[in-house]
């Protein structure tokens, strides 16, 4: 069955670590830009205009209701057919684009949930004082919503760390891709267990910090 886990780790740990860096990087980019885009989608979703609202609803449902891998294939192969300018994007950029779009749908729901969880009376009080809707959103609602949003957003990052394994299908350098790399060295089972171990350690550590963050935010109420 070939060399053991420790031996494979000792020989190839730079490759696994490079994969881990890739994974964390993809997840961070996806969640960061996904959050920016997600805020925008959430605003559309909360709009009273029925058409704008419907666009957001369709966007969120399509991206949450179809598998990320399918989205990646469609983005990579068929988006440039519809929009020829997109041919300028590299394969990695398509993968990142898919991750961002996918993440934005989940983040927009997190943000929407955070905003709607703020008591309606807060908006009424602010508006009755004559505060503009923009100031009301930015100064009154968002600071309160953030407390609900932050932990969920951190959990989304943890979920995204696992989702990025699909980037390996497109040979983007992340943790799962190291399996393809080492399969060329006829290492079959060892990389899988090492990769699983790394995912587990990273997600457990991050979950611990999210718990800590939740406690801190709860204490400040």
């Amino acid at each position, binding site marked *: 069955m070939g*060399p053991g886990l420790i031996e494979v780790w000792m020989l190839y740990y730079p490759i696994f670590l490079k994969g881990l860096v890739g994974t964390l990087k993809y997840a961070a980019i996806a969640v960061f830009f996904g959050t920016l885009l997600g805020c925008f989608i959430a605003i559309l979703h909360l709009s009273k205009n029925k058409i704008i609202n419907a666009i957001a609803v369709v966007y969120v449902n399509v991206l949450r209701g179809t598998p990320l891998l399918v989205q990646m294939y469609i983005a990579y192969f068929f988006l440039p057919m519809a929009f020829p300018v997109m041919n300028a994007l590299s394969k990695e950029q398509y993968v990142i684009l898919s991750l961002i779009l996918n993440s934005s749908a989940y983040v927009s729901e997190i943000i929407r949930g955070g905003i709607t969880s703020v008591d309606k009376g807060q908006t009424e009080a602010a508006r009755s004082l004559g505060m503009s809707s923009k100031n009301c959103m930015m100064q009154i609602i968002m600071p309160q919503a953030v407390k609900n949003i932050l932990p969920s957003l951190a959990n989304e990052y943890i979920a995204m760390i696992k989702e990025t394994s699909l980037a390996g299908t497109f040979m983007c350098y992340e943790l799962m891709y190291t399996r393809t790399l080492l399969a060329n060295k006829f*290492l*079959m089972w060892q990389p899988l267990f090492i990769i699983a171990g790394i995912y587990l350690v990273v997600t457990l550590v991050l979950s611990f910090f999210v718990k800590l963050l939740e406690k801190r935010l709860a204490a400040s109420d």
Partner: protein
Amino acid sequence: MKKLLTVLFVVCMMLNLVACGSNEKENTEPVNPDTQENAWVWDGPKYDEVKETLGAATIDLTAADGKLASILEKGVLVVATSPDYPPSEYVDVNTGDIKGSDMLLAQYIANSLGVTLQIEAMDFSAVLTAVSTDKADLGISGFGYKEDRAEQYELSHGYQSGTAASHHTLMIKKEDLDKFNSLEDFNVEGLKIDAQANSLQHMYVEDQLTNATLTLVSSIDQEILELQSGKVDAVAMDATTAKNYAEQSNGMFVSVWEEKGIEFDLTMYDQTAGNVVAAKKGEVSLINAVNEIIDQMMEAGLYSTMYYAACDDAGVAPGDDE
């Protein structure tokens, strides 16, 4: 209860392996030393040297149209491949570069067209999709000639190393070797066989082992894992790949071609020998240019050098019978 015991057994076995592994000498190659004894040695030019000195075929490009014209205009040739198939295409573990004899061929084609080569790596089943959706100009991924493939894509003339024999066979666990004495022994109800989706072996199993149960996987290492874990009884692959994996398995797996001369029957196919390059249907000008380049390459005996240098670089033995 039985399941629990199996799990415990597997865990013990793995811990055992971990322990063994850590005790072993500080070997810089992960390959088992046993296989190094009868290691094949290549004393020709190394991979990088071959790549640098490839040169180019002389072809007439004045009548170029369609995709070929746009390649020449852009100055870039995009080739899609699935780098999980050493020595034809694989990723250099240290540099992350995509290498292999097919990639040297791709470089040679690019040189001959006077353009830059850009390699796009992806899943095997995605390679041909990339060609048909214009994501890539050519698909070069150890493709064999298949009827239905030829209907959907422009396929080039075949290319192969001078001595590489085109055999397609099955790999099994060594302990099962007694059960199989002919190809017909695999054509049994309930026997489970893996093949890589859309590969030649996929077609062979479908056509010739109709009684067996075929499972499709997306990469060769999945086949190995399934064979190892007993999910399947045999995996279909070409003889070179089977030989390499068998050698790397410490005697766990054997190739029935090496052991008993069992192979798929290829006489029933109207096939082009060796591997082919795929282009989008209708890109006649492009495939004609590729054919011209391949013909000149084969005539000059250049491909064998590419193939052996790639074997040497990937650390696998070439699949010839000499």
